[in-house]
């Protein structure tokens, strides 16, 4: 009986150990994602203050960085990375399609209405 109890305690301890490791790993991922998001925000903010005469390229770069940040929020914070494949396709589809449309509107100076 004593031997069985030791086995049971050991298995619960192993599960707890795995659980703590998974939790720490998830929190570490979130913090790394947040650091990346804040760094990209500050980088874009500082770049905006620099003088340049290539406004269209600058605007495209800022937009692409913004959507990269959106992708980090959705994949990491919203856990779309681990979500059902259909949901991931829908969310990533929205990100890529919206980015593509906005890039085309900027690149080709599209004016549909005024």
């Amino acid at each position, binding site marked *: 009986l004593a031997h069985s109890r030791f086995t049971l305690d050991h298995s619960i301890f192993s599960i707890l150990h795995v659980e703590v490791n*998974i939790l720490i790993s998830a929190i570490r991922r979130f913090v790394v994602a947040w650091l990346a998001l804040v760094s990209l925000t500050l980088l874009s903010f500082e770049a905006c203050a620099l003088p340049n005469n290539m*406004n269209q390229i600058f605007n495209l770069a800022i937009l692409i960085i913004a959507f990269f940040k959106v992708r980090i929020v959705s994949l990491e*914070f919203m*856990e779309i990375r681990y979500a059902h494949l259909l949901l991931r396709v829908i969310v990533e589809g*929205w990100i890529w399609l919206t980015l593509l*449309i906005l890039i085309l509107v*900027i690149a080709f100076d599209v004016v549909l209405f005024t």
Partner: protein
Amino acid sequence: MGWRKVVMVDRRVSRGSGHHIPGEPGLWVMFMGDLIIFSVFFTTFLNYRNATPSLFHASAMTLNRGFGLTNTILLLTSSLFAAIAVQWYRDGHARAAYYLLVASAALGWGFVAVKIMEYAEKLQTGIQPDTNIFFTLYFVLTGMHLLHVLIGEAVLLAVILKTNDKDTDSLSFVEGGVCFWHIVDLLWIILFSLFYMSK
């Protein structure tokens, strides 16, 4: 206790297997509808910017970029706390999740306070929604977003109350509510880049 922990580990295994949907599936229909509407708003903004680039540039220069940056950092940090809160809640640490969600909501109210200061500053200098097309879009789009922040605060309050309820397992509700808060954050990321960062 051991059984409860095994169930929690099982939940995470199911999340990692690619079959998990955060929150209720029906909620995502509403989320995606909202995102598509904002895509139309972003395209409309760029359409008008292409039509009158100098007006947009001159108007954007009058915005207080410091307020925009502060609000971005506030929402990103709020999102971080909310994401960690879901992990803690999933792990059975409802109390820790509760405090993190309260901190997340507090940062959200910080966003609202900064936004009100920004609007007040604009109105005091005589800038109104009918000043020009840039400011019409500025007040309408950031106003729509502010409405989302306020709805998100109400949702977060409901989520906070759920995490405080020890008798029910509300993981799906917590995940869905927090996902809406992340959507509020990601919409602001794009608005910030369009209004405050473009040249």
